[in-house]
């Protein structure tokens, strides 16, 4: 029997990459899981893949664009509608595009990064807390980044949004600390996910380097001199979601191979 049996989780950006790995880890431990993404075809494929083994919890897909408040609120509402509750929220989606040094950055690029990482986290957290607080139990596992603790030239919009996620995490943790709800942020190093392959070239160009050089830069900054993997992040999410995670809150947990200085 899995240790998340009877729990209900919601993972945004859950059809691929880190989100999919977390959804899979939760489902294997018995949780019922809602995964969200924009593309119903990818959603159906992910649900099929997660359900294939026949073991673990149930899985459902909810389509929605996390850059929109209405979709964020709907993902939480549909999780509760489908499975009767929401115990674990992982606002995992995030990113940016049209990266540029601040001197040339457009309002649109900054706004998009904030909507995608920060506002989406705020909207889903606020909506989920309305269910978790009366239940007296909850786990919020936000997705920050090594760039939520550090800075990198050329990707200020991403860095700003991920730092904001960390600030939100620390504040909410103190608001709900005595209510059985923990709020933490994961800060992974670079991982070569589909999303990284999609967004990386623009980020690299803004930094004046190639995509391969971008990946190498991240590896060089770490102690392990290689990129992280999605399973590394899922293992920490699983710990935080478990009963043993009850004593950890307001933490910004580095899963970055020894990159961040704190």
């Amino acid at each position, binding site marked *: 029997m899995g240790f998340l049996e009877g729990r209900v989780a919601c993972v945004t950006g859950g059809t691929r990459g880190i989100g999919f790995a977390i959804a899979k880890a939760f489902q294997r431990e018995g949780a019922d899981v809602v995964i969200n993404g924009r593309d119903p075809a990818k959603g159906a494929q992910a649900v099929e893949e997660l359900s294939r083994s026949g073991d673990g919890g149930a899985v459902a897909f909810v389509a929605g664009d996390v850059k929109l408040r209405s979709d964020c609120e709907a993902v939480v509402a549909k999780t509760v509608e489908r499975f009767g509750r929401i115990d674990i929220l992982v606002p995992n989606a995030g990113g940016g595009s049209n990266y540029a040094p601040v001197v040339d950055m457009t309002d649109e690029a900054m706004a998009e990064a904030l909507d995608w990482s920060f506002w989406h986290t705020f909207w889903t957290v606020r909506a989920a807390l309305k269910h978790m607080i009366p239940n007296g139990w909850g786990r919020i596992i936000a997705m920050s980044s090594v760039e939520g603790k550090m800075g990198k030239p050329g990707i200020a919009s991403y860095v700003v949004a991920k730092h904001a996620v960390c600030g939100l995490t620390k504040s909410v943790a103190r608001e709900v600390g005595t209510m059985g709800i923990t709020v933490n942020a994961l800060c992974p190093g670079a991982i070569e996910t589909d999303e990284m392959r999609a967004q990386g070239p623009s980020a690299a160009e803004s930094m004046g380097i190639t995509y391969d050089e971008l990946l190498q830069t991240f590896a060089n900054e*770490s102690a392990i001199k290689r990129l992280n*993997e999605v399973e590394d992040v899922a293992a*920490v999410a699983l710990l935080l979601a478990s009963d043993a*995670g009850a004593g950890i809150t*307001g933490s910004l947990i580095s899963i970055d191979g*020894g990159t961040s200085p704190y």
Partner: protein
Amino acid sequence: MGKLDGKVACVTGGTRSIGRAIADAFLAEGASVVVNGRDQAKGQRCLDEMGAGDRAAFFAGDARKQEDVEGLIDFAVQHFGHLDICCLNSGGVEATAPVASMSDEEWKLEMDWNINHVFWGMRKSLQHMIPRQAGRIIVTSSVEGKLGKPGLAGYVTGKHAVNGLVKTAAKEVGTLGITVNALLPGIIETDIVRETGPASAQAMGLESYDAMIGLFCQESSIKRPNRVEEVAAVAVLLASDAGRNMTGCLFPIDGGTMPY
């Protein structure tokens, strides 16, 4: 099947409290464990309680003495054939005092216990782990490794120092299959806290032991002490294969106390 089947671990200060919880969790995941403590009788009682048969062993030694710490590593390697996971967990204070009235003897004891013990154990373990290109070093630091508290200068200094050691060693062995991390628990009402707490409370200018526990709880978000099982769960994660890409990490288990 456990997450640590076939692995060998040692834990300083492993007969009670946090160290004991880590040892128990490692045993439950299939590892063999050498627990260390000063008292042979307590060690034997610990082994009896664990009931793990050949998979558990006790090594009597004082974590404040270099030969004892190095002897523990040698013993673990000799007894079980190798060492995969070294938990440098022991630490504490005796007659602590505000800096202005701290004795040289107490200061030296606190440095030996909280930082030198970790250095001795880490160095010796790395000499064994580097040729094997595999290993996990897990140091028990503290919330006081990032914060400061009046009256606890030696402890705070020692725990800050081990954080620096962890970050440095992590970078030295990052490509050698070895991770080096620190656990930073908040206050836990362990046996040792109950024993030394009243004196610490006095050094901190507080009226009672309960006032000290209350102060730590008040600083947290969860407004309660942490539990040893919460720390042990993180130790298992770091020791397991899933922890292979986490290193140089100062892992908070403090109920939302530290600001960073």
